[in-house]
């Protein structure tokens, strides 16, 4: 019994090391149940309204919900604003599966984010993010933002809450964060971040545990009269490595299982262009569609290029790849423009401008989504197709 108590205490001690205690206990809660007030939250990239106690975002193009700033001093959370023990919880309902990015901003102008998918459907679901997984826990919070990638309408937030839960609540949030599947996005070709357990990566936790196993093994062998032998501790250490590796493996395989389910739901049965757009995410939803359309509008053997974008821009590189077999050239007959807010085209003079840049002698041969994107052709080439 005494041994059990000692072990429990040790466990609690370790937990305290993982989640440094904080003196704060007050909550910040936004429930959007007071008329049409968004309670200081700002919506970018979409139209917001308050309806039935929810903040709803319509016609959103990668909409972002930004908290009042500076969040902590104004909002009344007592004490300092460091991230230790601080959890952001939000109940959200999305008409479709969506990739969500939660960002924490600190007073010293740094930020950290996490991305995860939320399930679509008619139910509100709660998500909790332990903010010290995004930024070092000693940093002071300035604000938070929640962004939903892609085109979305009817995204509803029922409530948002910023609070410091007790040990059990914090452990729950950390546990949820540990198992939260990482979206498989294009950056992952270079790295896969270790899952985090509170402020620490799983790797760090593993070293602590393996170190403990090593020390306990040494103590055990000394107590048993075998003397201090590092080599004797090899088997317990190896076993600890194996157990932790299996836990890690289960966690990562769970990620793949979720990825499989999500990809099957989102992409199976769709054509390649649609799948490509989904995977590249915002703002590429229309880009691939646009490319596949303008390919058809170009004369055989003609060359194409961006009107104002640098040939080294990512969009221009994407265009070169996806417009094949149409020849992309530095000296093209066809010019494309994709969602340029400064674009002005004077049909009579055939001049196309964007800010200080001007190209003359063009005719528009294809428009996409209400003139936001278009294909132009040099007039000296004759009539368009």
């Amino acid at each position: 019994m005494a041994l059990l108590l000692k072990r429990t205490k040790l466990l609690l001690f370790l937990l305290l090391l993982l989640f440094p205690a904080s003196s704060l206990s007050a909550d910040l809660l936004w429930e959007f149940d007071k008329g049409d007030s968004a309670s200081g939250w700002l919506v970018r990239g979409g139209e917001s309204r308050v309806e039935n106690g929810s903040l709803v975002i319509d016609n959103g193009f990668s909409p972002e919900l930004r908290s009042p700033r500076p969040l902590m001093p104004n909002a009344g959370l007592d004490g300092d604003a460091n991230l230790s023990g601080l959890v952001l919880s939000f109940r959200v309902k999305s008409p479709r599966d969506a990739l969500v990015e939660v960002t924490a901003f600190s007073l010293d102008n740094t930020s950290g984010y996490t991305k995860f998918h939320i399930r679509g459907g008619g139910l509100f679901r709660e998500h909790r993010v332990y903010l010290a997984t995004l930024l070092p826990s000693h940093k002071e919070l300035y604000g938070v933002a929640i962004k939903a990638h892609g085109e979305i309408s009817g995204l509803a937030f029922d409530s948002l809450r910023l609070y410091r839960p007790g040990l059990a609540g914090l452990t729950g949030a950390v546990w949820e964060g540990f198992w939260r599947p990482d979206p498989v996005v294009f950056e992952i070709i270079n790295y896969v971040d270790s899952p985090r357990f509170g402020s620490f990566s799983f790797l760090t936790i593993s070293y602590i545990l393996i170190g403990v196993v090593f020390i306990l093994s040494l103590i055990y062998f000394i107590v048993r009269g075998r003397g201090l032998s590092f080599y004797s501790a090899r088997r317990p250490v190896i076993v600890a490595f194996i157990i932790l590796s299996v836990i890690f493996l289960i966690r990562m395989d769970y990620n793949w299982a979720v990825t499989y389910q999500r990809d099957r739901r989102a992409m199976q049965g769709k054509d390649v262009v649609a799948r490509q757009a989904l995977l590249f995410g915002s703002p590429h939803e229309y880009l691939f569609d646009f490319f596949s359309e303008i390919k058809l509008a170009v004369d055989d053997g003609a060359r194409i290029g961006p009107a104002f974008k640098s040939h080294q821009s990512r969009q221009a590189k994407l265009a070169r790849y996806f417009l094949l077999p149409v020849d992309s050239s530095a000296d093209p007959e066809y010019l494309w423009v994709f969602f340029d807010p400064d674009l002005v085209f004077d049909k009579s003079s055939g001049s196309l401008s964007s800010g200080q840049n001007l190209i003359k002698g063009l005719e528009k041969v294809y428009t996409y989504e209400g003139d936001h994107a278009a294909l132009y052709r040099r007039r000296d080439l004759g009539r368009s197709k």
Partner: protein
Amino acid sequence: MTGLILSILIPWVTGYLFASWLLARDEASTLLERLFLGLGLGFGILSFEIFLLGLLGISFALVTITVIQFLSAIIFLILTVRAGGLLPKGGVFGCGGLSGSFAGGKAFILIITFGLLGLFALKIGFVFYESLLRPVYSFDSWTNWSAAAKFFYYEGGLMLDSSNEHFFGSGYREFLGHPLQMPLLEVWSALWVGSFHEAYVKIHSALYYVGLAGVLFYGLKRRCGALYALLWSWFLASLPLIVFHATDAYSDLALAYYTLAGIVFFYRFIEEGSGAKQGAKLLMISALFLAMAVFTKNEGLIFYIAAGIVVALFIKAKGLSWRLLLSYVVPFIVIAGPWLIFKIAFDVGYGHSGAGSEMEWLSDPKYAEGAERGLHFEVFWLIFKEYFFRHGGFNLIVPFWIVLSVFGIRTVVKSELRYLYIFLLLVIGAFLFIYLTLEVTAVTQRTGLNRNLMTYIPVITFTSALLLVRVWARKE
């Protein structure tokens, strides 16, 4: 889909026959092992042949390449039959069938074995599903590799007219100096599918993934038993970054495959190669895989040279004939030679410095504008943090290997394992040198750092598995 399957089977059969010829007199060689090795050999031979066609200015027509593949298969078939090696002497799986290989017949062992095989099947199923569902989508995959493939496919050749705006893919390819193995495999798939299908063309990554696990399995099974080998293969196949790469179109997984296969045979040479004829054969197979690695990615040169240094050290230490080195050099000249001569002749370079791919020593232009030229020692701390605290792509294998090496240092020094360690230290040293002098951003921007490690993580896994058996069993 039929076209895609044929695009896989044709080079695979050719590679299988090639492997059968190489391993004709190997008593322990099994059908499955030859299939795993034949996969890489077949794809390597295929891309090499397409490259030669491109050099000769012959159009990449499906019929032409397929005929050459059939001719290659017939030649390897004749050689294999003459060597008496068409039917593997080791059976299908080894040890007289699958259940026999997990000897003992104990229910527990069988449950673990079939449990692992079930998990393997799930993982492989997942990889193939994702590979065929997801189009090429990571930025680096299409700019570095698929852009070349798509351009060559529509061009019908390598476009070697230096006066053309798109010489060798200029304007489409980020770096002209990147080797062509994966792009040419994508061209081949596209030819069989009938269009450049953004998902289907990258099926090779999933196949290399299976091959990688298979090569590790047979590399370990010969020494440590089937169940142990299966456990490690499953572990390797579960490493997250490897699984991810298996579903996309990057070249690092293929490089990892060739490196591991080369090192498995290199280690067999170290263990069994004192007999001149057997040694020469094993060394030749090792060099063949490592030469294919050079045609897969520029980093392949590091592995070939590092292994070459160790081979020389081994020959000197054992007092063997220096003529053995010929077996290591000739495959390299044949397979990698044309590509390297092409690189020099057309000045397409190696580095990441810009359109010309030239290298700028002590200056990484992507690091920061006006960044001081010099050695960037800050990379050491960043590498340490990345490998040991931040990156989860390799589970705990790196710290495990280090801890195990500390426990087993005496075993390593006294056994043939020391040659694997020399190889690994040379490779690690070479990469550190590159990060310090050329590719600082590979570390600071987390671009190449983990991918580079992934290319020799299978060798670290192989080494760890071999050492673990000894450390676990050895008394102080």
